């Protein structure tokens, strides 16, 4: 058993290492060849890398804000993950910066942002925020680890040597020195709080000030960024604590903390969903073409599944169910899994922020005005038939699955045994999906495609004539950008780097306080 686990661990790290190695190769290719290796084009000039940039800045700011709960607001229950939160904030800020770096057309000039400063540019303001943030973060983390570094530096092995270097000559291990450290950390945290809000709210403002893109333009955007950052940050800590960290903690204490973090995640996530609803419902009702087209593209475009499956079902709906259902909500492993799902789902959120808003040409017909568009163009016609087809496929699968489980239950009954609980659960879910899909299928069969599209088969009901009819428009939806292999590989490389840095840091640094609370 132990051996099997070690083998699994080695395989996982081997895979991560390999992906990172290949990915860093892709980064080198990109650095040598310029942005020609990407599929970015004049319609969509920002793509996967910018999406990952705001994703990691969000993870970082979210983690940091979680740490302020401990060190500023004195939320003692989260004390044991305070350092971990700060450390992940640091690592993911670096990851975010790496994504900006490889996205620059002229990477070698990145340092000029500190020389040619245009303080009217939100991006430049952000760069100042990032620098301030990284300083505060590093100082806080160091002060919190200082005594542990001094203690661990007393040995003679390689780890002690690293500790001694990182302690920067500090030798004081008295309780007074720790109390002094904590006072400084509190001040730093108070300064850091608005800075962290500036870091991610400002990243949202980067988009919110662009009046050329109605989907981005507006005062709600920076707030959405902060809330989703908090959701992803707390979800990340839930996941890491449930599966990897907290080895030094008592099992019960750790489990309780995971469940608490899960609840916090669910709260932020629910608030994030509320903002999403506000954004979309008002936008759809408003019916402003440029705005609406972007929403149509998100909801029903070629990448509709990023919204429905990654962002909503995988990243929000299922995690909320896991956290709130009594059967799973009390199990730290399940809640940790929910945290992982949120962390992944937010990637979909970020992709849908950056790419669709750019994919609607600012002037109709601009995309066809020039034939040398170096990008794959994907056309996807009307949406509901697609969703219906999918639902029908689900219906068939669900029906087959349900029959199968019925069979198994029948077999158990024949042996005089009760059905398992999960079997009953699966049967009810399968039946629900099958019934829903069959209902839609019948509607479509009765009414034909057009009727199903516009009135869901109910005669006299034409949804295009309602205030929300615009979203059901039947024009073709195009996407002008699919990330190139290099973009995917480079991203994988940078993400792998972040994971490895995180793991190494976790092994070497005293990220979990031994004092307890």
């Amino acid at each position: 058993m132990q051996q099997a686990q070690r083998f699994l661990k080695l395989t996982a790290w081997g895979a991560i290492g390999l992906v990172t190695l290949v990915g860093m190769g892709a980064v080198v290719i990109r650095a040598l060849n310029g942005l020609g290796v990407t599929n970015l084009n004049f319609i969509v000039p920002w793509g996967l890398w910018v999406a990952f940039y705001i994703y990691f800045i969000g993870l970082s700011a979210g983690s940091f804000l979680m740490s302020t709960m401990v060190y500023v607001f004195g939320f003692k229950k989260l004390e044991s993950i305070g350092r971990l939160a700060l450390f992940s904030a640091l690592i993911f800020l670096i990851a975010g910066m790496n994504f900006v770096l490889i996205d620059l057309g002229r990477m070698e000039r990145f340092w000029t942002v500190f020389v040619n400063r245009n303080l009217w540019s939100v991006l430049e303001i952000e760069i100042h925020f990032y620098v301030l943030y990284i300083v505060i973060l590093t100082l806080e983390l160091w002060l919190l680890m200082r005594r542990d570094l001094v203690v661990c530096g007393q040995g003679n092995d390689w780890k002690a040597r690293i500790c001694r270097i990182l302690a920067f000559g500090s030798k004081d291990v008295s309780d007074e020195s720790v109390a002094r450290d904590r006072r400084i950390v509190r001040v730093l945290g108070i300064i850091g709080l608005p800075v962290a809000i500036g870091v991610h709210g400002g990243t949202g403002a980067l988009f919110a000030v662009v009046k050329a893109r109605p989907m981005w333009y507006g005062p709600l955007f920076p707030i959405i960024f902060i809330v989703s950052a908090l959701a992803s940050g707390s979800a990340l800590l839930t996941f890491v604590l449930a599966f990897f960290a907290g080895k030094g903690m008592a099992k019960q204490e750790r489990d309780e903390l995971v469940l608490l973090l899960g609840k916090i995640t669910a709260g932020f996530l629910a608030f994030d969903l509320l903002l999403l609803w506000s954004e979309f419902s008002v936008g759809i009702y408003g019916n402003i073409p440029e705005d609406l087209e972007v929403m149509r593209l998100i909801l029903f475009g070629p990448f509709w599944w990023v919204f429905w499956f990654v962002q909503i079902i995988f990243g929000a709906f299922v995690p909320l169910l896991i956290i709130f259902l009594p059967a799973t909500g009390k199990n730290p492993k399940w809640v940790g899994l929910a945290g992982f799902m949120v962390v992944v789902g937010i990637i979909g959120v970020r992709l849908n922020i950056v790419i669709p808003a750019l994919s609607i040409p600012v002037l109709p017909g601009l995309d066809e005005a020039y034939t040398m568009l170096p990008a794959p163009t994907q056309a996807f016609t009307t949406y509901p038939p697609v969703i219906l087809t999918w639902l029908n496929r689900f219906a068939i699968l669900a029906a087959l699955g349900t029959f199968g489980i019925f069979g198994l239950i029948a077999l158990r009954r024949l042996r005089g045994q009760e059905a398992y609980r999960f079997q009953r659960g699966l049967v009810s879910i399968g039946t629900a999906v099958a019934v829903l899909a069959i209902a839609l299928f019948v509607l479509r069969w009765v009414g034909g495609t057009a009727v199903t599209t516009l009135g869901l088969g109910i005669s006299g009901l034409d949804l295009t004539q309602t205030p929300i009819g615009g979203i059901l428009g039947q024009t073709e939806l195009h996407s002008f950008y699919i990330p190139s292999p290099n973009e995917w590989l480079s991203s994988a490389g940078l993400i792998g780097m972040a994971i490895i840095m995180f793991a190494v840091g976790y092994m070497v640094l005293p990220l979990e306080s031994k004092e307890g609370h």
Partner: protein
Amino acid sequence: MAKTEENTTLAPDTTRRRLLQTLVGVAGVATVAAAGPVKKATEATTISLDTIPVDAPVVTSDGKVDPLERMRADLARALQKPVSERRWVMVIDLRKCVGCSACTISCVAENHLPPGVVYRPVVEEEIGTFPNVTKRFLPRPCMQCDNPPCVPVCPVNATWKREDGIVTIDYDKCIGCRYCITACPYNARTFDKGLTYNDDVSETNTIALVGPANAEAYEMAATHEYGENRPRKEGRSPIGNARKCHFCLHRLEKGMLPACTTTCIGRATYFGDANDPDSLVSELIASPNVMRLKEELGTEPKVYYLQ
């Protein structure tokens, strides 16, 4: 990438445009091949420009003044004023535009634009439903906004509005973050990814026609934007930078009209100094059928459309 494009777009108008591109390619290569004479030709233009009397525009056979000649006189007059007193505007008469894309192509040739970079596309809009359709052609240069949204977003001050209203880019400062491209409501900025038409030889038969070496020479020839001499070399600006229409500033300074204006076969594009009440453009922008794109955004474009 280019292959996908080749396979998917084979509509007749595309073929026509490709033919045009091919022709320009050939013309361009011819110019490069005969580099010596070209220089002389440029000098000749300058000389002939000086011979145009500023106060006596050329009169055509039907008794009217050719707008091109009048605009050249307007330009010469404007150049005598200090830069800060000039206000360059462009007027495009949509009723005259036939959608030939000559302006797009001449712009590509003038500024040596690589694939994916376009300063002045002609946007085609189909109005009505088949078979009762008509087409509207909308050439779209940079609007040279008075309140340009692309300028404040630049983190490194690499782009700014000149005194005469033209929004320019410093290729040596630009870090290629492309924030300005997303901020432009007209998509007037594009990004130089460093591609060349030579990357995919099967793309056009131009290369087969003129030979790879000549094609290469044409593609690598220097661009003279902003009066600078920038040969196209790997890793050198403007590769990796944002690029945009600058009303052919380098031509203006030499007393020449923008390339798109001189090549417009329908005389649909006008250019001149709006601060000069006697200029042709000042007359045109005073007409009631004048329109500007997306005025509601408060960008104050300096490109006017007549419709």
